[in-house]
């Protein structure tokens, strides 16, 4: 038999993830188009659409994160930090999940000065925010509040009125790579939080570095995800 070249598995992974991500992007687009062309007539239909959209965007997010972490690991991740309007980012990410918000009748409040601008990588931070939003949508009991303000760096907080984060996550939210953080029952890997922290850390300014923080007992009563960028 002829020699078969050994696989560079990391490369295969990256290429495949890339391909799947494109497919999922198309799938998500089609779902949105379908909803537009055939608006749901019953509550059940609307729930189906929401479920389709929710699962597809979860997979999409996981893949974007996987590819992002791979590139980070290979030093290939391109960081483009530019000045952006924070409100644009928050509105875009909530619009992206419009089907979910509508289907679950979420009361969403955004508290952000309209001219507030900050310096960050638009695509990467968008992915972080989107991931937190999708996750929050899963646990909230109907209310989500996003707050953004700039004193000592930019702070974006996403709060809900759900049960809050479990204690072990509050203590050590980033140990995704430890075995016990992978819960096969719920499917949670904490990959999203790990990704969020890595991306936050890429944002530096002189001596400060970005970070994330989890808290409970938000003003809405549930958990708060906090992202701070210098």
């Amino acid at each position, binding site marked *: 038999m002829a020699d078969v070249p050994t696989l560079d598995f990391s490369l295969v992974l990256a290429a495949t993830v890339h391909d799947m*991500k494109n497919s999922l*992007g*198309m799938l998500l*687009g089609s779902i949105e188009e379908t909803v537009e062309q055939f608006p749901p007539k019953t509550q059940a239909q609307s729930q189906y659409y929401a479920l389709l959209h929710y699962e597809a965007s979860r997979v999409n997010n996981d893949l974007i994160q996987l590819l992002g972490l791979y590139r980070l690991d290979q030093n290939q991740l*391109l960081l483009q930090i530019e000045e952006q*309007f924070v409100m644009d980012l928050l509105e875009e990410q909530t619009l992206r999940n419009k089907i979910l918000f509508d289907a679950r009748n979420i009361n969403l409040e955004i508290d952000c000065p309209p001219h507030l601008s900050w*310096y960050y990588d638009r695509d990467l931070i968008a992915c972080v925010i989107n991931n937190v939003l999708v996750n929050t949508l899963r646990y909230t009991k109907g209310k989500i509040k996003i707050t953004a303000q700039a004193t000592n760096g930019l702070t974006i907080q996403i709060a809900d009125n759900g049960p809050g984060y479990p204690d072990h996550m509050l203590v050590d939210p980033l140990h995704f790579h430890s075995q016990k953080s992978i819960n096969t029952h719920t499917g949670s890997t904490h990959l999203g939080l790990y990704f969020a922290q890595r991306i936050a850390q890429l944002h530096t300014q002189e001596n400060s570095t970005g970070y994330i923080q989890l808290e409970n007992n938000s003003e809405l009563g549930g958990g708060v995800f906090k992202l701070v960028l210098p």
Partner: protein
Amino acid sequence: MAFINYTDKRFLIIDDFENFRLSIKKMLDGFGVSKVDMAINGRDAIAACKNQDYDVILCDYNLGSGKNGQQILDELRYTRRLKNTSLFLLITAEATKDMVLGALEHQPDAYLTKPITQSMLKNRLDRLMDEHYQVLPIKKALDQNNIKQAISECQKILKQDSRSHKWCTRKLAELYYQNKNYDEAEQICQKQLEERKLDWPYLTLGKVAAARKNYPEALEYFNQLLAINPQYVNCYDEIAATYLAIGDASKAQQAIMTGVQISPRSVHRQLKLAEISRKNDDLDTATQAYRNTVELGQNSIHDTTDNHLNFARCLSDNAEHDYSKEGKIQAKEALNILEQINKKYKDDPKLMLQSAMITSRVHAGQNNEADAEKSLTSALQAMEKMGDRVNPDIQLEMAKTLFTNNRTEDAEKILRKVIAENSDKQDLIDQANALLDEPVSIKNRIKAAAINQEAITAYEQQDFTKAIKKFTEALKFSPRHPGLNLNLIQTYLKQMSDSGLAKKTLEQCQIYLNNVNHIHASHPQFERYEALKTKIASLQQKLSA
């Protein structure tokens, strides 16, 4: 945010897929746009922009064969078909690194990532239009090339509370620089840096320093920028320009090469690399850069005949006396390019003449004497026919071609004519002298220079025997080089002052003097030549006395 009325806005959608065009059009219909044109490729798009000013252009990056979205943007901006008052949005499936950064020359007003939904498109457009209308007076002034007006509009907006503050600050710094208000430009940048260490103020500060001819300071600013953002491609262009201004072409090439690595799709940067590396005699880099320039420039405004000719010239120089497989392939590639030019421009006498000269050199470089002679004859006839329209560049290239065909005397005749007729143009005189000094292939020139360096080291270590051996070896590659010949004579003289006069050695020195009797009073080595000539003559007298 102000309510945006889309009913009177004119849109152009550029995409090769009908489904996509229609889906975007439907979304636009949804927010009341009635004037929507569509184009399926770059040619149609550019034609559409000739007839019509658009408020917004939505262009897909990937348009199959032909121009891509970035090339359309480049061409529209370059030809000023796209006004500052129009918005250009580039739609991408996946923002790949090469693509996005290749776009830095002419940046679109926004990138949209597929999949596009109506609500996201509306949201994005509303914001863009809102910001766009706030700064419209500035953009209008820019369209009229009225920098002063644009500056005063920027100042006006900066006095108000506006979302466009940061955009205006940056624009104002750039406009001050363009208008040579260097102090003002500097002030804005320094103030911005006090607030936050961003990249762009360093670029402008560096450009200001370079404009004031303070090159070390300029380089310092550029390096500070790269410490923050090593991917800022335009910074490498400025670094290269600064090194060229100092006269360090090798560092300039290094800088531009880094820029090319980051953004390989930029035609103008590939061309810059090709030009600088060709000047540096780095034929491999130049050949590859010209190849990229020609390939990337296809179907674009950058697709010029000069680039094709220079590509062929590089290939020709690279393949000269290279009879290996690789050399043959390069010679063949050059001939293919020239054949295409001959077909396309058979009515352009100047291009045909240039092409014939290169063709002749390619053949001569591969020892195809008959073919070389044939092309040379037709080139000479074409030059004759052109009469007064022959410029010094053509004369210089003809001299080079004649040398390659071993027609030394004819070549020298032309070069002397160039020197005589252009006494006020030092650049041309230098080029003519360089050809007279070293009518050899670039590769031989490089070899001779390297061995010359070894010989000089030996001379400095008082090892005259080794120095003589090395200088003689270098002369095999570049027999007429004045520096080499005079160095060798000087070494022989030094040796004789230790070991006594020798008749044979003096005769040899006379031969080396004769090698360089083409140099005249304007040559930098002329004084040294005269001094050594006198010295040899007196030594010969002494010996025969």
